[in-house]
C-alpha cells in the first residue's frame, strides 16, 4: 500500500519535515490497510444507507438571530476592524466558490 503523505500534507497546508514524513508514512499506510478489508465485501446493487427527508419537511426560510460580533471573534487569536486577522501569504489571488 502506497500513500503520498507529502501530497496529503500539502493539501492540508501542513508542512512536514523529512523525519516526520518517514515516521507518518508507515503509520498512515497501516491505517489504510486495516480499512482496506472493507473492500472485500461485495456491495454491488446495494444502495448506500442514508436517512431520507422530504423536501416539504425541510427548514422553512425564516431568519433568526446570529451571534454578536464579540462572540464570533472570541476564538480569533488576531482581529482587526471586526474581522478575523490571518497572517501568511495566501496562495492565488482569487477566492474559491
Amino acid at each position, binding site marked *: 500500500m502506497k500513500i503520498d503523505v507529502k501530497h496529503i500534507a500539502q*493539501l492540508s497546508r501542513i508542512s512536514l519535515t523529512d523525519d516526520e514524513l518517514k515516521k507518518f508514512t508507515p503509520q498512515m499506510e497501516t491505517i489504510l490497510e486495516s480499512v482496506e478489508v472493507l473492500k472485500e465485501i461485495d456491495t454491488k446493487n446495494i444502495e448506500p444507507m442514508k436517512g431520507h427527508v422530504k423536501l416539504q419537511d425541510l427548514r422553512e426560510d425564516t*431568519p433568526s438571530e446570529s451571534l454578536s460580533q464579540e462572540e464570533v471573534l472570541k476564538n480569533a487569536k488576531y482581529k482587526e476592524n471586526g474581522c478575523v*486577522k490571518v497572517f501568511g501569504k*495566501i496562495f*492565488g489571488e*482569487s477566492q474559491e466558490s
Partner: protein
Amino acid sequence: MELNEKYDVIVGLEIHIQTNTKSKMFCSCPTDYFQKEPNTHVCPVCLGLPGALPVPNKRAIELCILMGLATKCSIANEIFFDRKHYFYPDLPKGYQISQYKKPICSNGFVEVPSGLKVEIERIHQEEDVAKSTHHTESSTGKEYTLVDYNKSGVPLIEIVTKPSIRSAKDAKDFATKIRQIARYLNISNADMEKGQMRCEPNISIQEKGKWEYKDGKIIPLGDYKLNPKAEVKNIGSITAVEKAIEYEVKRMADELEEGKPLKQQTRGWNASKNITEFQRYKETADDYRYMPEPDIPVIEISNEDIKNISKELVELPNEKIKRYISDWGITEYSAEVISSTKKSADFFENLQLILSKKIGEKEAAKEASNWIMGPLYAIANKKGKDFSEIGVNSEDFAELIIAFKDGMFTKNKAEEILNESIDKGINVSEEIQKLKSVKDSNGSLTEVVKRVIEENIQAVTDYKNGKEASIGFLVGKVMQITKGTSNPNDVRNTLVEELKK
C-alpha cells in the same frame, strides 16, 4: 493569418448566483449582510464550529429547482450533498458543502440571440464562502488577510455549461439571459457589482477541422493534441465577460504564432487595464477529496413538489421575444430590448393592450414598440433609467399615440407633450383637448393656408417671382397659427398647391 481562419474558439461558462432567500443555506442566519458590520450575521454553523450541524433551507432548494426548470433541465428526485475539501481562511469548516456527482438539475439549455442553444451540463446547490480582503502591515511589511464570515453559508447555485459556446458574444449573451431569467423569476437580483452573480469562462482555441464536439466534450481528431484552456476569474460585469474572452483568444493565438506552447492556467480580469493577468498554472488536477456529506440526509423531491415549484414560472424573455415577433411582427432587436426586464416587458404589454382597444392588435404592438424604442427610449436614456421607470402613465401615453395617429399634431409636438408630462407633470388629456380646440377654431388646414396667403401678399409675390425661399416664411406663419397641430410637410404641400391657383 487571420485568427478566425485558423482557430475555433471554445468556451464554457461557470456562473455562480446567490439566491434570494432570507436565511442562509444551512443555518438560520439572515442573508442581508450587504454593507453590514462584519461578523454580525454568523452562528456556529456558518462559522464551522465543532459539532455544529447543517440544516438545509427548503426555499433555497426550491429556487435552484426553479432555475433548472426555467433552463429546461431535468430535476433529480433525490438530492445528495457532498463535501469539497480545501483549506483557505474563507472556508472555516475546511470543506464547502456542495454537490459532486449528482447535481439537482442537469442537461438543460438556453437559446441566445445568434440562435445557438447553449447547453447546460448542470446546476447544483452549494454555499458561499466568507469575504476576505488582503493587506500588508505597513510597519512590518507582513501580508495578512481580514476575514468577514457574514457571506459564509449564503445559498449559491452554480450553473455549468458544456463547452458549447463558440464566441465571446454568445458567452456574453448567455450570461445576460441567465441574469434575465434569475431576475424574472425573482431567483436572485444577480447584481454582478454586488457579487450576487459571478462568471468564470473557460477558454481554449483549437485548430479548425482538428477536433469534434461529442457528448458535451471536445475530442481531438487523429493525432491532434488539444490546446490547454485558461480560466478567467474576477470578472465584475457582463461586458467584461465578452472582453475577457476576446482578450484571451488573442493572447493564446499570438503565443501559438510565436511558437510558445500554451499552459493550462488561471488568470484574473483587470477591469481598469482591460487585460487578463496570470495568476497560477494548473498543472495537477484539482484534488478536493469529495465525500458524501454525512450530516445531511437524502432529500426526496416528488413530482408533486416539482409541479408546485413550476407554478412560479412566468413567461420568460425568450418566450416573449418569440411571441412578439410571430404574433405582432415586432423586430427582433426591439423584442430583445423590450423583454430585457420584466418591468419593461410589462410596460410594453400594458401599452399594447390599451392601444388595442382603439386600433388593431398588431398595429397597437407596433405603435407601442416604435414609441418606446424611439422617443421614450431617448428620454429614458437622458435620465439614465429604464423606460419603464421614468413615470410615464400608459393611459396618457396611449392617448397621445392615438391623437398623433389621428393627425391631431406633429410627431415633434407629441414628443414635446410626452416630455412635459414626465418632467412637469402636465395633464396629457387636457393638453390634447387644448390643441383640439385650437385646431377646430382654425378650421381645415386649407382654410388656414388661404388666410395666410391673403395676409402675406409680399411673400406670395416674392415666391411667384421665383424666390422660393419665401415659402419657408409662409410655412412658419401657418405653423404659428396651428400651434404644432399640423405637419410641416402637409403645410408646405398645401401651400404649394394653393399658390399654383
